[in-house]
C-alpha cells in the first residue's frame, strides 16, 4: 500500500522544513512541494541586512549572494516532487489547481504560503516604490541603493528599521515615517522603542513619527500635516498580509492567516494544515488567544508539529495537541544585535535588569517584560548571549501553562 499523498503549498522555510519532517516520519509519503517563486527555498532575514548590502555595494555577485541564502536541506531530490515557479490558485475536491492550469492530486494540503507586504493604497511615484519580501525584491531595491540618494521608508517596524540601518551604512540619506509615536513600538513597548529611536537618530536617520504619507507628487511624498519629503526612492514597509486567497471555500477560518489548533490542523477542516508565518495558533505559554507569529523560529517548530500530526492521523492515532513553542526573534541594526525571547508584545510593564537604556548601542542592555506579574518576554540589546540565555529560562519558569490543553 502506498503512503499518504501530501501537497505542501509554499516553498520557503516552512514548506521545506515540513517536507523534511514528513519524509523523516513517513518515508512512504508522496510529497509535492509547490512554490510560486522560481527560486529554490532560501533564507529571508539577510534580505534586509547583509545580503542586500552585498547586492547594493557589489561586493559579491548576485549568484554568490543567493548561494549563501539557499537553505541547506536533508532531502534527497527523489524524496519530493518539487514544482517551482507556479502558484496554487485554488483548492478542489481532490487536490489543488496551479497557475499553469494543471491539477496536483493529494489527500492532505499544508499551507505554507507566508505573507506579502502591505502596500500604500495611493497612486504616484510607482516606478520608485519598492517592497522587500523576496530575493527578487531585494535585487530590484539594491540596484537603487546608491550612496547619496534620498530614501524614504514608510513604516518603522523591524524590516523598515533594518533597511534604514543598512541604507545608512551604504551612504544614503534616510527618512523614516511612521504613524505611531516610536519605531517598533508594538513589538518592543514604549521604553525600548524610544531607545531604538535614539539609536536611529544618532546614526543620522531622519525619523518622523506620528505622521503618515497622504499622497505622492512628482518626486515628493506629502505627509498628513502637509510636510513635503523630497525623495528619490520609497520603500513601503508597513507590515504584511497573509497569502490565503487560494484557500477560500475550504471552510477554514481565514480572518488573519489560517486558524489552526495545536496540531496545526485548520479549524473547520480535516485535511488542511498550516505552518509558518501564515498559521494563527494559540500558545498556552501566554494565553488562549490564537496569533500569527512572524518570526524565523516558528516555521521549524510548526513544520515538525504538522508532520507529527499527519503521521499520527494516517496511522489512526490521536495526535498530540499540546503545543507551546517559545518564540524568539532577532534583529540587527547598526551592528547591534537585538534578541528577544517570549512575547514582549504582550507585556504591560518593562523593567531594565541590566545596563541603561540611554546607552543602547554602546553598552549591553537586558529588559524584562511582564504581564499580570508573569514574565512574558526578555529582550537583549547588544547583550552577552550567555547572560541572555540565563534570563530566558525565567520565562519558562514563570510559565506554568496558562491553560490546560
Amino acid at each position, binding site marked *: 500500500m502506498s503512503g499518504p499523498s501530501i501537497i505542501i503549498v509554499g516553498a520557503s522555510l516552512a514548506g521545506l*522544513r515540513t517536507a523534511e519532517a514528513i519524509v523523516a516520519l513517513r518515508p512512504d509519503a508522496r510529497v509535492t512541494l509547490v512554490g510560486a517563486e522560481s527560486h529554490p527555498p532560501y*533564507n529571508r*532575514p539577510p534580505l534586509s541586512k547583509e545580503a542586500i548590502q552585498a547586492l547594493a555595494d557589489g561586493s559579491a555577485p548576485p549568484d554568490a549572494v543567493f548561494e549563501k541564502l539557499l*537553505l*541547506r536541506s*536533508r532531502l534527497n531530490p527523489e524524496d519530493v516532487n518539487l514544482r517551482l515557479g507556479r502558484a496554487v490558485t485554488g483548492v478542489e475536491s481532490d487536490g489543488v489547481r496551479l497557475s499553469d492550469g494543471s491539477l496536483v492530486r493529494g489527500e492532505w494540503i499544508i499551507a505554507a504560503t507566508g505573507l506579502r507586504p502591505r502596500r500604500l493604497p495611493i497612486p504616484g511615484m510607482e516606478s520608485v516604490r519598492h517592497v522587500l519580501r523576496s530575493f527578487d525584491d531585494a535585487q530590484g531595491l539594491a540596484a537603487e541603493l546608491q550612496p547619496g540618494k534620498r530614501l524614504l521608508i514608510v513604516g518603522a517596524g523591524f524590516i523598515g528599521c533594518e533597511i534604514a540601518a543598512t541604507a545608512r551604512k551604504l551612504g544614503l540619506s534616510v527618512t523614516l515615517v511612521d504613524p505611531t509615536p516610536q519605531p517598533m513600538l508594538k513589538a518592543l513597548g514604549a521604553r525600548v522603542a524610544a531607545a531604538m529611536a535614539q539609536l536611529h537618530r544618532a546614526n543620522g536617520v531622519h525619523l518622523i513619527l506620528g505622521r503618515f504619507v497622504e499622497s505622492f507628487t512628482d518626486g515628493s511624498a506629502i505627509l498628513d500635516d502637509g510636510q513635503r519629503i523630497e525623495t528619490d526612492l520609497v520603500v513601503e514597509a508597513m507590515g504584511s498580509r497573509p497569502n490565503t486567497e487560494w484557500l477560500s471555500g475550504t471552510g477554514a477560518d481565514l480572518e488573519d492567516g489560517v486558524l489552526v489548533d495545536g496540531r496545526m490542523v485548520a479549524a473547520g477542516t480535516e485535511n488542511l494544515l498550516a505552518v509558518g508565518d501564515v498559521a494563527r495558533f494559540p500558545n498556552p505559554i501566554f494565553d488562549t488567544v490564537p496569533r500569527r507569529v512572524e518570526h*524565523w*523560529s516558528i516555521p*521549524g517548530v510548526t513544520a515538525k508539529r504538522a508532520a507529527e500530526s499527519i503521521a499520527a492521523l494516517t496511522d489512526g492515532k490521536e495526535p498530540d495537541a499540546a503545543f507551546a513553542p*517559545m518564540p*524568539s526573534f*532577532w534583529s540587527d541594526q547598526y551592528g547591534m*544585535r537585538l*534578541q528577544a525571547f517570549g512575547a514582549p508584545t504582550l507585556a504591560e510593564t518593562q523593567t531594565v535588569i541590566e545596563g541603561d537604556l540611554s546607552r543602547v548601542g554602546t553598552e549591553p542592555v537586558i529588559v524584562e517584560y511582564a504581564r499580570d506579574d508573569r514574565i512574558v518576554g526578555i529582550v537583549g540589546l547588544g547583550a*552577552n*548571549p*550567555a*547572560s*541572555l*540565555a540565563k534570563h*530566558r529560562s525565567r520565562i519558562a519558569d514563570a510559565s506554568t501553562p496558562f491553560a490546560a490543553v
Partner: protein
Amino acid sequence: MKIDVDLTICLLHGQCVIAAPEVFSFADDGSLVWVTDPDEGLRADAEAAADACPEQAIIIS
C-alpha cells in the same frame, strides 16, 4: 556523529543552545562551546539545533 560549527558565520544567536543544551552552550565570556563528537543518541537534538540555526553554521557528519 561529529559536530562542527563554522565560527566564521556563527553570529551567536544561541538557538542551538536552546535546541540542544546537552551539545551546545555558552562560555561565561559569551563564546559558543560544543561537544564535538556527542553520543549518537543526541542526533535528533543536534539536527534540531542545525535546523534552528539562522546562519546554517552547524555541520553534522
